[in-house]
């Protein structure tokens, strides 16, 4: 569905991404693993234009959009790229001045011009899906971390994106709340959403990922199916990484 080619990104003199390729198939779950500082979050943010790559191409197979970053892309294209994907942040980043329901309604009403009533109905359906319909009128500060993150997921779904991006969605959560969020993500995967997930949850990757990518030092070290990566890999750096994370 999406072809990402040769993404480079530097912050000042610090070259974070050194040419990353990735193809994401429709309805598949791609999990990106890697040690901290490897560039995996930066890469994810490039897909959403939260970071603008220095070079590289992001192209959608259906020819709906292709952005080449070698030339400075215009604002319109960047906005279109942004609107292709929904993002779930490590720190939720809900809008604190809006209720759960209003958090979900902002994108559809302002961007897509959906009427208030329609947006509200859709938002309620999404809250229901993540099991939080009864929290619709609460403000984020009145919700637990796990609930906030599920609202964050529902908010990403509300703009009806082509794919969902997750940036370490459970890293800021108390251990007992992690499972709720992972369950919600598994449910989305089983519904056929295309997902790219940066995470340290190896068990989630084992259970859910169709494709696993290991990034280190701005390069893709190895990629393949979950089975290939976790059981059959002989790549020394993959093994070293898995050992570190599982010990």
């Amino acid at each position: 569905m999406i072809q990402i080619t040769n993404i480079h990104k530097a912050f000042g003199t610090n070259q974070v991404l050194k040419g990353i390729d990735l193809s994401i198939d429709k309805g598949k779950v791609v999990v990106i693993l890697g040690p901290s500082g490897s560039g995996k979050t930066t890469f994810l943010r490039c897909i959403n234009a939260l970071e603008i790559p220095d070079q590289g191409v992001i192209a959608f197979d259906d020819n709906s959009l292709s952005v080449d970053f070698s030339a400075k892309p215009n604002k319109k294209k960047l906005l279109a790229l942004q609107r292709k994907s929904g993002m779930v942040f490590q720190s939720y980043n809900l809008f604190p001045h809006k209720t759960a329901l209003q958090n979900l309604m902002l994108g559809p009403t302002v961007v897509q011009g959906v009427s208030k009533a329609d947006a509200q109905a859709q938002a309620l359906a999404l809250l229901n899906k993540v099991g939080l319909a009864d929290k619709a009128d609460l403000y984020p500060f009145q919700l637990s971390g796990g609930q906030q993150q599920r609202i964050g997921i529902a908010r990403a779904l509300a703009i009806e994106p082509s794919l969902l991006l997750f940036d370490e969605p459970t890293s800021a959560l108390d251990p007992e709340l992690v499972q709720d969020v992972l369950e919600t993500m598994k449910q989305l995967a089983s519904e056929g959403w295309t997902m790219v997930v940066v995470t340290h949850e190896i068990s989630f990757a084992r259970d859910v990922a169709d494709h696993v990518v290991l990034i280190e030092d701005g390069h893709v070290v190895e990629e393949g199916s979950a089975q290939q990566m976790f059981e059959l890999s002989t790549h020394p750096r993959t093994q070293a990484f898995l050992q570190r994370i599982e010990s």
Partner: protein
Amino acid sequence: MLASLTSALTDLLALLPFMSPDRAQIVIDSFWPMLKGGIYYSIPLALISFAIGMMIALIVALIRIVPRTGWLHEIVYRLARIYVSAIRGTPMLVQLFIIFYGLPSVGVKLDPFPSAIIAFSLNIGAYASETVRASILSIPKGQWEAGSTVGLTYLQTFRHVILPQALRVSVPPLSNTFISLVKDTSLASLVLVTELFKQAQIITARNYEFMLVYTEAAFIYWGICLFLTFIQGKLETRLDRYVAK
């Protein structure tokens, strides 16, 4: 009814130390002219200047925050900085005199009230722009990012996500600015606006009761500011409804 009430009040005032029936009568007689000066001139002066000043402040703050691209923005940015520096670096009274007494010599003749409005608005614009800018910058970067990931443009994110949160942060410091402004409107007496303090000066010119009348003027200012502080409290409570306590 009102007459009997004021006479009762006059008797009561006469009982205070250093007071006499004559002086009590002066206090009562001066009250309405001064309060009227406040209601007709001081408060409108403050409200109008604050409204215009806030618009200037928001524009200046935005000019200084939005990432600069292109030479035009660069020029506007520099001009905005010079404006803030010049206004903050010179006394308001001097600015007021330049506008009211100075401009006529270059052919711009303004009435007292508009002169004061211009001077106060420019001042509020410069001072409040710093407050507004700081409030906007105090909103975490993640909020900008969250706005853009739900598809909002820069300006839409600013309008729907950043500004409402920045507003909450800026209410206490801006209330401070506004209360200062209410008191600074007394400077307008020097360019012949017949506001509260000008009325006090007119009255004392007749009866030479400086201590009495100026103290009374002070109490009226205080009363107005107490009322404004009360409004500020209400506003803060309303804006704080989404913040954990």
